[in-house]
């Protein structure tokens, strides 16, 4: 039953979380949502550092620097800091065992680098635990606990899809396909979620992100799929169907355009390699970042020129 949780999907999930960051808190940590000022937010997730003891470079999923509202309770007694970091790390594996020490490493590193208070949150796609709570990493020496590090977590598989799919929070709706659903309700909930997003009044881009997430993690079998398609023809969906189709078509058209660009890039690289190859990594990198129109031009120019310089692929 394990549907592929591709790195691609997880990458786009991060884009969605960024776009709906405030909703993320409202959805899962509503008490905290009102303590942050989401209008004063900077993303720091480009941050890459050496994570001991492995010493490798790591990129954290999401790190936001946020202002805390002055009327929120103090973070610690005698601490008047009004800026904090929120670190959200997505875990898509079936076990969170290796994730726990990593969260601790990230935490210590973030604290050391920034000097700011850090709120760490794990978002579990495949492990439910208690749904929402505190998970912990511990270290022992001869049975004595030296350390206990806690971080907040959301374990989507333990949350009731029914409740979130029909709730007001659109991010909750989009994540509902990762939540606990009775098999016989899957098709209905999926259709209902798509309808909610279609009628949400959000702009095209945001609707597209939400729909993508819902689709990416949906796990309908053949029976449920047919049932879903039949449902779309029924009265409750009549109103939403045109919008649902628009979102679908937009996604499809965007994918298609991207696929064509890839095909052109592939052809350009093959032709360049045949004529001037083997290609230096710098040349490949330059081709990798060309946009649609530049690629088309390159393919045209390729027949006329005799050097990479003339194609501006070499200095």
């Amino acid at each position, binding site marked *: 039953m394990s*549907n592929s949780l591709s790195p*691609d*999907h997880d990458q786009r999930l991060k884009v969605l979380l960024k776009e709906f960051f405030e909703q993320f808190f409202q959805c899962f940590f509503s008490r905290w949502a009102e303590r942050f000022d989401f209008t004063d937010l900077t993303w720091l997730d480009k941050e890459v550092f050496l994570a001991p003891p492995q010493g490798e470079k790591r990129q954290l999923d999401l790190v936001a620097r946020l202002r805390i509202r002055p009327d929120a309770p103090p973070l610690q007694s005698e601490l008047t800091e009004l800026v904090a970091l929120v670190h959200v790390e997505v875990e898509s594996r079936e076990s969170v065992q290796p994730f726990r020490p990593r969260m601790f490493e990230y935490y210590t590193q973030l604290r050391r680098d920034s000097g700011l208070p850090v709120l760490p949150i794990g978002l579990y796609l495949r492990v439910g635990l208690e749904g929402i709570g505190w998970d912990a990493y511990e270290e022992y020496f001869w049975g004595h606990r030296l350390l206990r590090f806690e971080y907040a977590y959301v374990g989507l598989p333990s949350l009731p899809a029914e409740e979130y799919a029909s709730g007001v929070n659109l991010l909750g709706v989009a994540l509902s396909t990762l939540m606990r659903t009775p098999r016989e309700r899957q098709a209905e909930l999926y259709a209902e979620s798509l309808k909610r997003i279609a009628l949400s009044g959000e702009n095209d881009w945001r609707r*597209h992100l939400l*729909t*993508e997430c819902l*689709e*990416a993690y*949906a*796990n*309908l079998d053949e029976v449920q799929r047919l049932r879903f398609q039949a449902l779309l023809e029924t009265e409750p969906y009549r109103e939403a169907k045109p919008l649902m189709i628009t979102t*679908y078509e937009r*996604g*499809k*058209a*965007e*994918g*298609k*355009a*991207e*696929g*064509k*660009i*890839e*095909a*052109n890039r*592939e*052809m350009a690289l*093959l*032709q360049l390699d*045949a004529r001037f190859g083997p290609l230096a990594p710098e040349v490949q990198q330059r081709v990798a970042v060309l946009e649609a129109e530049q690629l088309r031009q390159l393919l045209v120019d390729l027949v006329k020129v005799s050097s990479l310089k003339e194609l501006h692929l070499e200095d």
Partner: protein
Amino acid sequence: MMTTYERGKLEGRIEGRRENVLLLLVTRFGPLAPEVQQRVAALDAEQLRQLLVDLIKAPSLSLKELHLED
């Protein structure tokens, strides 16, 4: 499961490859016979890629050697 965007991307890649293959064929061999066009239309993603590679790396191959003609 595969999203609509990803399905579109796959289709776009195949369509783009097919267009590029046809472009190279026409450039090399002139107007194509309907049978040749039909054979190209029936190729899947991987076969199209192979044909593209052959067309570019071995510019002297004939339509027959490219398996587009009997």
